[in-house]
């Protein structure tokens, strides 16, 4: 409940803050979003497995987002930023699909 409220507030904040978004941050946001999605799907699957823990969710969410940003940052420093972004998206994409498939099996038993 609180989390959903916070989500709405976050969306509002994001739109309100966007004009001040520094240009250096724009390459990190997409990767951070993919990492966040990965954490979300992981949490959803854990929920269906009956093992959800908000502590693990919060920690995995923030560590995922931070590490994704860090990898892109390091990639930018050594000149392979876009390639590393692609690598992160591929790995996280596989995880998201795997989790989504498990969730689908849990809901539809198919």
């Amino acid at each position, binding site marked *: 409940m*609180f*989390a*959903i*409220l*916070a*989500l*709405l*507030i*976050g*969306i*509002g*904040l*994001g*739109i309100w*803050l*966007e004009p001040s*978004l520094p240009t250096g941050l*724009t390459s990190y*946001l*997409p990767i*951070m*979003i993919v990492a*966040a999605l990965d954490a*979300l799907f*992981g*949490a959803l*699957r*854990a*929920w269906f*497995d*009956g*093992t*959800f*823990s*908000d*502590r*693990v*969710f*919060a*920690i*995995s*969410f*923030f560590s995922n*987002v931070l590490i994704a940003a860090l990898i892109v940052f390091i990639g930018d420093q050594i000149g392979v930023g876009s390639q590393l972004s692609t690598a992160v998206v591929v*790995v996280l994409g*596989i*995880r998201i699909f*795997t*989790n989504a498939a*498990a969730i689908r099996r849990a809901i539809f038993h198919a």
Partner: protein
Amino acid sequence: MKRRAVRGDSDRPVAWSMDILRQIRESAVDPDYAAVGKGKHASAGRWRLPLVAVGLVLGMVVAMQGWYTYKASPDAASEHDQLVSRIRAADKTNDDLRAQQVALGDEIASLQKRQADTTTQAQLDAQGGVSGGIAVTGPGMVVVVDDAEGTNAARVTDEDLRQLVNGAWQAGAEAITINGYRVTARTAIRSAGSAITVDYRSLLRPYRIEAIGDPRTLPARFANTPGGAWWADAKNNYGLSYDVTTSSSLTLPADPGLTVTTARKS
């Protein structure tokens, strides 16, 4: 200090460490969920704040990126339009300055006419036509060339235009323009990027070459020069469009760039 066991590391075949795809799929859900949260669905009050933070960050990041992408697309388009209009404006300024230069050149010529005696004037007129220093009128030949039809088709290159112009000189043309730019002994026909330039002014296709000379003999003689052969070949083998006609009256402007820059009166 209690050492934490690294899950499943010891009883795993070595080859698995290279099996990265399988590893990604098998640990798709954070293993800590299994370790910590067995059967606990209700939120413990302590973890409500991090969850709120998760929601805040997630909403903000997604909204920022979405809004940014939404706003960036018309930005790029308007930037492009702005650049195009700036190029057009610069082109127009260029043309205006050139027209001014031509007008001033005409003024110089008329002042010269008033000063010089008749023999000097006759000399000036005769040499000005050949050198490109004055505008000339007369019958001649018009060659219109263009890129071949189709998306990946052959294009006219600067070398093609050089061959054409040299062929026209060889055939006896007395004055030549390309798309209205007078070609003189000092004119450079080159390419810059994908455009052909004449004296560093870029041309738009189709390319129209006007050459003053005897319209009865000029086309035939041109066809016999290496330039004419070059273009017959380009037309037949590469599909470039190449059209030769004659005209009873052509007016070619002067080259405004013909000034003495280094030489001095001794």
